[in-house]
């Protein structure tokens, strides 16, 4: 403790120099912590997103073909047809008999409830949807087989939509009006999901869910939109087919089968996209590993630079304090005492840089979250690791100057002016 105190005193002799030396380590540690926090946050977001999609799921989605193909295949009056077909969903089901295959139809509609209004996506789907998407009901119930068979005008709504349309009352049993005067009775409200896993840039929290059969009957397969004076008609049977497999081991072969079945058929129009969350998850994990390697290299370089700075200053300090070394040796200091003294000084220098660097490194992610809305995660092991490495850098780079100090001839050292 006394050695540390003496080390601090010696460093205080050259405050500016000590501060500048510390800065090398400080920024090294701060940047490592900040980069790790941002990387961890981004990675976690991506991993969560893919997990939310379901690691045993495969998602086939209809996508609007590119404009060039659209104009060539579309006459003035006929609707542009694209995307997945009911028959294809059946094909998938028969190719993967043990899998749960859920069909999804999405239609944009204005929803009204009294004075409250919201244009959102009405999702027509089946009973397994809630299990496949791993969502949960907070109130009421999910859509049933009976709802589907009877084409009932029942709906389940997402938590955000519930808040928008029913800010003050319980939505259960209440009626929502869609644009074409259809009325839907709310039978359930979903738990808040808080993640962007929904269609067309929305989240499922904002959607209304109705039975597949009802959707098909009420909205049909054709969608008409008018924009800028032109009138467009699109024919689309299914927006998405979600497939849930029993285990993640089956995902690879199932994805292969689905790609064979669907992508081949849609090769011409290029209007179907298959997403395999497990593949994305693995890719993300691989890219995270690569990120960690890159980060380790950057961290090593920055700490190496900091370490060289410390070594440089410690060598200068040793030269400057040659006489002091001579005095201490004359007063009984052994070589190990001199080594200890200068190692402690180097360690204190880098540990100070480490401490301030940790604080700065923890502030930067907070700023990034606030200004760039980028999720960051600071992990305690990362902080400890960065600090530990910084202190170790000081000691390692302090060894040579300390060794030089300890090996000075006391007589020569005392003569030094």
């Amino acid at each position, binding site marked *: 403790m006394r050695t540390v105190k003496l080390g601090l005193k010696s460093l205080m002799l050259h405050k500016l120099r000590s501060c500048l030396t510390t800065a090398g380590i400080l920024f090294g540690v701060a940047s490592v912590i900040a980069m790790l926090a941002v990387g961890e946050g981004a990675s976690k977001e991506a991993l969560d997103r893919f997990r939310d999609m379901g690691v045993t799921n495969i998602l086939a989605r209809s996508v609007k073909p590119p404009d060039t193909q659209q104009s060539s295949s579309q006459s003035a009056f006929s609707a542009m047809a694209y995307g997945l077909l009911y028959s294809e969903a059946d094909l998938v089901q028969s190719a993967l008999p043990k899998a749960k295959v859920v069909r999804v139809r999405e239609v944009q509609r204005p929803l009204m409830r009294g004075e409250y209004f919201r244009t959102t996506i009405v999702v027509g789907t089946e009973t397994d949807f809630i299990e496949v998407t791993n969502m949960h009901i907070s109130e009421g119930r999910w859509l049933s087989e009976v709802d589907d068979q009877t084409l009932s005008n029942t709906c389940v709504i997402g938590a955000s939509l519930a808040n928008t349309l029913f800010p003050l009352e319980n939505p259960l049993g209440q009626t929502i009006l869609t644009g074409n005067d259809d009325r839907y009775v709310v039978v359930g409200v979903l738990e808040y999901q808080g993640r962007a896993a929904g269609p067309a840039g929305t989240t499922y929290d904002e959607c209304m869910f109705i039975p597949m059969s009802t959707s098909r009957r009420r909205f049909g397969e054709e969608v008409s939109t008018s924009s800028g004076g032109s009138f467009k008609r699109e024919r689309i049977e299914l927006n998405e087919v979600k497939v849930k497999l029993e285990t993640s081991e089956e995902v690879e072969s199932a994805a292969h089968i689905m790609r064979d079945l669907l992508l081949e058929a849609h090769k011409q129009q290029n209007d179907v996209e298959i997403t395999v969350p497990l593949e994305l998850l693995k890719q993300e994990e691989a890219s995270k590993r690569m990120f960690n390697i890159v980060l380790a290299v950057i961290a090593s370089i920055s700490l190496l630079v900091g370490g060289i700075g410390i070594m440089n200053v410690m060598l200068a300090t040793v030269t400057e304090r040659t006489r*002091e070394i*001579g005095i201490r040796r004359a*007063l*009984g200091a052994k070589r190990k005492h001199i080594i200890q003294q200068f190692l402690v000084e180097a360690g204190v220098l880098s540990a100070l840089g480490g401490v301030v660097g940790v604080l700065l490194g923890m502030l930067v992610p907070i700023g990034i979250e606030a200004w760039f809305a980028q999720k960051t995660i600071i992990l305690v092991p990362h902080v400890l690791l960065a600090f530990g490495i910084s202190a170790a850098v000081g000691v390692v780079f302090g060894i040579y100057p300390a060794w030089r100090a300890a090996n000075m001839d006391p007589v020569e050292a005392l003569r030094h002016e």
Partner: protein
Amino acid sequence: MTQSPMSDDRKVIAEFVDVHRHYMMGTNVVRALNGVSMQVRQGDYLAIMGRSGSGKSTMLNLLGCLDRPTSGQYLVGGRDVSQLDDDALSDVRGREIGFIFQSFNLIPQLTVLENLEVPLFYQNRVGPESRAKAEHLARRVGLGGRLDHRPLELSGGQQQRVAIARALMNDPLFLLADEATGNLDSNTELEILALLDELRAEGVTIVIVTHNENVALRADKTLWLKDGEVEQLVDNRLAQTGGGAS
């Protein structure tokens, strides 16, 4: 060699037995000390004098265990230290010898108290006792109220007093002073010499290396070196009363 012509039963605390110290300067051998034998007894006040190149500094370094002889024996407290390794020599310096330097050599970033504690620090003896001792010695040299000052806040004379107090902290066998008043004005020099006289009167053994005859005359005896050999040993008390060299 410093014993009086009459038998002296005081304990020998430092002794050179045919000490040689040779250096290589390129291909030449410099014989800085060439067969020096001498003794320092308990309570002695010995001055070592000589011209430049006479071997004074070499002798000081050897006496202070900062260097080892090429051949011959150096006994401190009866123990041959001439072949000890670096750590053991450091121990001897820390326990048996009190250094006083020409340029005071206090550590600038430390307070007076901390400077006084440095010799004990390396023997793991810093604590309430060392503090009490430092306070006592600071008072003894007239700097009782300056324990928290830093060296640069003190005059040259005060700094040398601190250095003397520091040299006494480890209860050494002898004080080894190197031109202890060389950096001081004449008044301050007299003060410091008076302090050394007092210490000597209290029984402290002092060896002072100097080129200043007035300083040397304060000592009981003066050992004159010439060309690395003992030229003569003068008993100053006898010399002042008309006596002579041995």
